[in-house]
């Protein structure tokens, strides 16, 4: 197994973040659960924590009702597609990882780099309804209730609904929720707040608001090394910097990219066949010199 699968997803993101990550400690990796994510292991296993009898939406999708058995596959692939989109978006400072137990539960963490919430490291969990994409908007709940107008002071749930009143398939994607979750920390919205106190403070007494935010950020940081809220092999956990473990890993992360490039070049030479000149649609239009050998 590639111990870096979570990394390989993130290695495509902006470099600076590796620092943060190194600083915050390595994203803990799961037990050696073999195979790159695509071996389809996680889904069918106990699928989804909120297991209910097959959702109406799914059986509706399986036309004629004769093929209900493929429902889980469609769901799995819808979620995988969402995940690949998230990876592709490269949202700065946002990391997610589907849980081991269920593809419907994603663990995540947001690093805030500037603004009022600077230095904030907020862990969260995304819950996706099991009739996705035809159900409600996925929910995003922070592990700790952050002091923020749009975060429920008790449950820590972010008010996602305001941005995605109705979840529309094809138009709405999970990365949008993640982007939204990141944005609320940079651009504060106080209308119809879940945490009225913070909204009022933001409007009336920005200094107090700021100091409360600082407290909240500190609180989160002080709980950073706590064991994950939900016990799951793929849950994101932080550990203090340990040079013995992390230096090497960090080194690998920083060099992996280059190595990959080399390898790619090498492979380019040996596999794949094309003699079409770029821009041409004629076979064998390429100059002989550039022939891949």
């Amino acid at each position, binding site marked *: 197994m590639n111990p870096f699968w979570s990394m390989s997803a993130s290695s495509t993101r902006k470099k600076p973040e590796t620092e943060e990550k190194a600083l915050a400690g390595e994203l803990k990796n799961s037990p050696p659960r073999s195979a790159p994510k695509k071996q389809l292991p996680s889904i069918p*296993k106990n699928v989804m924590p909120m297991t209910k009898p097959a959702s109406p939406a799914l059986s509706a999708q399986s036309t*004629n009702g004769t093929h209900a058995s493929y429902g889980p596959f469609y769901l799995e692939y819808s979620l995988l597609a969402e995940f690949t989109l998230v990876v592709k978006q490269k949202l700065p400072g946002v990391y997610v990882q589907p849980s081991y137990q269920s593809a419907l539960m994603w663990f995540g963490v947001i690093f805030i780099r500037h603004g009022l919430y600077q230095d904030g490291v907020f862990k969260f969990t995304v819950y996706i309804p099991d009739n996705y994409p035809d159900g409600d908007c996925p929910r995003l709940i922070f592990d700790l209730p952050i002091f923020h107008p749009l975060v429920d002071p008790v449950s820590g749930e972010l008010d996602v609904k305001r941005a995605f009143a109705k979840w529309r398939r094809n138009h709405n994607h999970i990365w949008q929720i993640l982007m939204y979750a990141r944005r609320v920390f940079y651009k504060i919205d106080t209308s119809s707040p879940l945490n009225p106190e913070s909204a009022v403070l933001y409007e009336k007494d920005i200094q107090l608001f700021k100091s409360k935010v600082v407290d909240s950020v500190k609180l989160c940081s002080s709980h950073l090394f706590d064991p994950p809220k939900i016990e799951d092999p793929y849950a994101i956990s932080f550990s203090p910097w340990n040079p013995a473990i992390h230096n090497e890993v960090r080194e690998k992360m920083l060099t992996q990219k280059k190595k990959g490039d080399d390898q790619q070049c090498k492979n380019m030479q040996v596999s794949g066949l094309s003699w079409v000149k770029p821009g041409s649609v004629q*076979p064998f239009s390429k100059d002989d010199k550039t022939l891949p050998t």
Partner: protein
Amino acid sequence: MMSTGTSGKKSYQAVSLEGVDPETCMIVFKTHWAQVVKILEKHDPLKNIQAKYGTISPDEASTVQNYVEHMLFLLIEEQAKDAAMGPILEFVVTENIMEKLFLWSLRREFTDEMKIEQLKMYEMLVIQSHQQLLHHKPILKPLMMLLSSCSGTTTPAVEVELVVLLNQLCSILAKDPSILELFFHTSEDQGAANFLIFSLLIPFIHREGTVGQQARDALLFIMSLSSESCVVAQHIVENTYFCPVLATGLSGLYSSLPTKLEDKGEEWHCLLKDDCFLSPALVQFMNSFEFCNAVIQVAHSLIRNQLVNYIYNGFLVPVMAPALHKVTVEEVMATTAYLDLFLRSVSEPALLKIFLRFILLHCHENVHILDTLASRINTPFQLCVVSLALFKTLISLHCEDVMLQLVLRYLIPCNHIMFSQRWAVRERDWYSVSAAKLLALTPVCCSSGITLTFEKQQKDYILWKKKNLESDSTKEPSRKSIADSTCIVKYGETVDISYLQYLWDAQTLILHCMKDCEVWSAPYDGENPSPYTFIQTPAEEDGKNLDQPIFQLQCRTPSNHVSSQVTPLREKTQLELEWDDSYDTGISPGSDTGSPQHDVDFNTQPPAKPPKHIQEMKKNAIMLVKGSYIEESDFQDDVMVYRLCAEKDAQEADSLKGKPLIPEAKDVDNPDAISTNGPLKSPLPDLNLEEHNMKNLNLIQQAKDETQGSIDETTLQPNLEQTLSSSEGDHNTNMKLLSPDSEDFISECDNIIKELDSNPTGLIELKLLIPDSISPVEEEEDFENFSADTPSAESMPSPFGSKDAWPSNPARFQSIPFTGPFISVVLSKLENMLENSLHVNLLLIGIITHLASYPQPLLRSFLLNTNMVFQPSVRSLYQVLASIKNKIEQFASIEKDFPALLIQAQKYLLLRVDALDIPLESLNKDNGQQKSITGKVKNLSEASQALLQTYLGNKAKKSTVLPKVPLHISNAILAAALFPEFLKELAALAQEHSILSYRLLGDFEDYYPF
């Protein structure tokens, strides 16, 4: 010195000279030499006048021989310190001993035995000596003289020794290229033949057995040497016959290959490497061919280019091209199978390139080889199977040029898609909608009663590849599905476990393909290349393109005969015909009347149409080609064909009488048809052409019918009789138009039968009133079947099988939506799934799944996006599948025993899968021998071929398939059993595409399983 080497060697080797004083050795050597010299001088005519007349006594000869043996031994054993020569060697060099000895043997009768002895002597010296003897001219020179004296030799015994020695010399050369120069210089002394050892090897290139192998190995040493040394490369290219001998030798060897392959049963479809060993001629050819491949791999680019050109112009064009157009089906089949084997054996891109270039661009008698090959997919004979196998090989190469010619160039203009839908090409299927739609095509009759829930689920995990069902399947056959098993994934829900396997395979296939496609020039996503790119016909480009296979041989190569081959290539003119881009897409009724969008489309999209005069030329060319193609075409020798011809004539006569009834029915039901079909799109000359085509077609059709038994005929005749009587009046007007167009007849009959069998009052789709020899009937029929989004009910499967027997229609324009001849012929063949034999279906499925694994959005959206709206005249895979589904359901409703038969068929297919397990392992072993990644890839395809072969070729079990069931029923049942699996495969591909299509290039390393 006669019997020296061998006898003496052993005893000497036992003795060790270690510790013996070198000076003593030297003294011994010198005294021996003194004795020898005495005898030599006695017989030297320069020093002794009587020597001329005196014969050499046997005593003297053996004395010399004994001394020489000792001397050689001392020389071999001498260990020199530092770089200096040992004293003995120095003595040998200064005294020029070796040359004197050679002259001595020349003076006597220089028999073969003596040559052998001398060769052996040098071999021993070269191999065993502790010092580098070849650096010294006085040793090298006599060696060269010896070699050149052997050059004309014919005795096999001498050849054996000669090649062994040459091989040794070459291996030494390869290790120590510094000697190379010496070899050249020494040769210069000899005059013409420089680099003698190389020239001496050339005659053995194509030799069979060890001699040939050793010679080829030796040449490879030199080839790899040439990659470093431009001088060697240049010498070989300019001054030797190496490349021409190699390439034209292929032609020679090819001609001795069996022109007909032994009958291996109808399930046979391609030659495997193992099959080669059955035919010594093929072994020999493959040896030489693989040698070419190896040379191209290691040699200098000068040599590589020259060789590649010679192979193209000296083998492919003059030999393979005509062979692919031989007279009898068997010969053509054999050639196709050989070509397929060659393609699978090549690992070097440069060599593969000319093979592909040959297939894609070369025109034989103005027809592209590719088109000829594709047209054979629709033949009824085994030829179809072999051709399918060849295309499978081509597609699995993942070569851009192949895919461009075969499929993509027809998709690039996006004509096949509704204009408003073009944005959707790149669209990604987020929620597996296409997969769901594909799986929903599973006929109800195939999914009921055989789904199995796996009771004991192993923990929570899905059971991957758990094949513990052998016992189960025998115990509870009634509950066994074709799949390995199913299991409970989630409480209350069952999942088809085989689908997991399909997903896994799909991922592997797609990733593999994506990786190979990284080097492609464009993404083919509907934007790049732009839909407005002007796509020239490749033939027009031909002359320009062919600058590669041009001769650069300046010197005294005997290339005249070969280089003359160049001219026909370059002469290629616009005559090139486009009979392919024109035939699938008749104007269907709806396209003109129903969709204004379509018309708009036409206007906004300038058709990539060549100028008129070129079209005219093309037409003429086609006529020419068609004429000749058919006259001496594939079926000439078949007794059957003669019979069929007779039958055809009879039927044709009938058809004339049979027609009149039909227009009435048509008018009632399909008033549009007349107006839409009305315009006469083709100028008259085409009729001629059509006729030719149709003739060809008919042969095929009827041959096919023949195989289906005579049932059709018996049903046909009465039907015709019935229609006969009605209106004589129309008869005359129609006759003229119809007689040439016999395909219409076929389809009419078809329709009549359908009509009478299934739908007595329904419409009959014929166009009798219209002088329409252009758009084949099937187009309309197809449209009728598919134009609706939901599959419409299809009438009885045609007893005539597919009607799209590759008709060509030059009058159609490229602007008409058309997905290319290959796609349409494959789809139309697929549509007849129920009539096809199992192995044809397996190959078709293999081809389509392979096509569907390509990541290019144009291809992916065409094959797998079920939401795409295509132009009405374009048949999509989904529509074809829907039609098959209907056919299966219809068949199931007619066939009383369907459920039981289906289970039987499924069990049979399962058994065959099991039978595959062993051969697969043995194939995997071969993987180790592969060197490069391309080799690996190649091997994969080879493996899959083998797999399929085994899958198909399991004759023992075949006999147990559905006993007591007529062939056509068993074909249909097997197709019904295959169909749901095919759908799963496609759905799995669609699902995997939805996740993989956005994968970034850099990510490959993490996931790529190879």
